[in-house]
């Protein structure tokens, strides 16, 4: 880095001021042109690296569901475990049990997919600090409402039951995961 200054100065001694301007421009113009690409590349690398860095701070959560094939009206239990590798401030941990409608249709030459989520149930843990090595354990019970619909999947229309887990970490990328629960067209006794 410090070697660049005398080097440019040395080159300047052998060139006239016009030649020097031309040389500097010739050296700088490709750099100016490539700056946006370099910036975009750095941003993309940063986006790609952030979850890895977040993963160094918080382990991947272990989520186990008592039964992922259920009848309408039946309940299930979710066990959530996550270890914090270093001290971390968590803004919130939220579970949402949703019925998602997915509809696909053609518009001109495009295929458009729209979704709508009916939030059926949810729990939320507020902000708290986890110390290094601390484990978060949680157990929740959800129920498929008795008046609800079963899972339905055909070519263009889908109804899916999902348990969504959303962990917001202070200053780090959020952790979001979905777990599908298959609901059969039967009523629980």
């Amino acid at each position, binding site marked *: 880095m410090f070697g660049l200054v005398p080097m440019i100065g040395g080159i300047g001694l052998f060139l006239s001021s016009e030649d020097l301007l031309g040389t500097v421009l010739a050296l700088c113009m490709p750099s100016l042109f490539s700056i946006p690409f370099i910036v975009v590349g750095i941003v993309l690398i940063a986006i790609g690296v952030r979850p890895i860095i977040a993963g160094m701070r918080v382990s991947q959560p272990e989520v186990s569901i008592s039964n992922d094939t259920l009848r309408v009206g039946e309940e299930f239990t979710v066990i959530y475990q996550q270890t914090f590798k270093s001290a971390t401030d968590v803004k919130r941990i939220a579970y949402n049990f949703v019925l998602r*409608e997915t*509809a*696909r249709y053609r518009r001109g030459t495009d295929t458009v997919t729209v*979704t709508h989520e*009916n939030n059926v149930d949810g729990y939320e843990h507020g902000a708290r600090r986890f110390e290094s090595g601390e484990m978060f354990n949680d157990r929740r019970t959800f129920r498929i409402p008795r008046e609800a619909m079963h899972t339905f999947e055909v070519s263009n229309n889908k109804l899916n039951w999902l348990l969504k887990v959303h962990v917001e970490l202070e200053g780090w990328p959020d952790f979001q995961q979905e777990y599908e629960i298959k609901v059969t067209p039967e009523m629980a006794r």
Partner: protein
Amino acid sequence: MANANIQITLHNADMLEGMPSYEPGSVVQGTVHVTPQEDIKCNHVWVRLGWHTEGRGTRDEKVSEQIDMAQGLLSANTPLSRSFSFNAPREPWSYAGHYINIVWEVKVTIDIPLATDVNQSLPFVLAPRR
């Protein structure tokens, strides 16, 4: 366009919010009366039990069972009757949502060659007792 008066009557149905309703797996029974207003030369007169989706998505549909009620010439003002008995499948249940509706129906189609078919349908609810 051919013209015919089609009446569909469902028997043994419960009523749910003004709609005939059946439990999944039950028997859907009824009668169809077709009275052509003119002579109609048709391929078939179908009585079908099936579902289709309505809403934002491209329509999905499935015929669960069908009966070929008549073929050939339907004479003007000559009523045609047929009772039917279909086994309703266990799924999908009827559904009314934000982007998707699932509608069950008994549908009568007069299939006319090289012309617009004549259709009449009677929707019903297929859902379990809650």
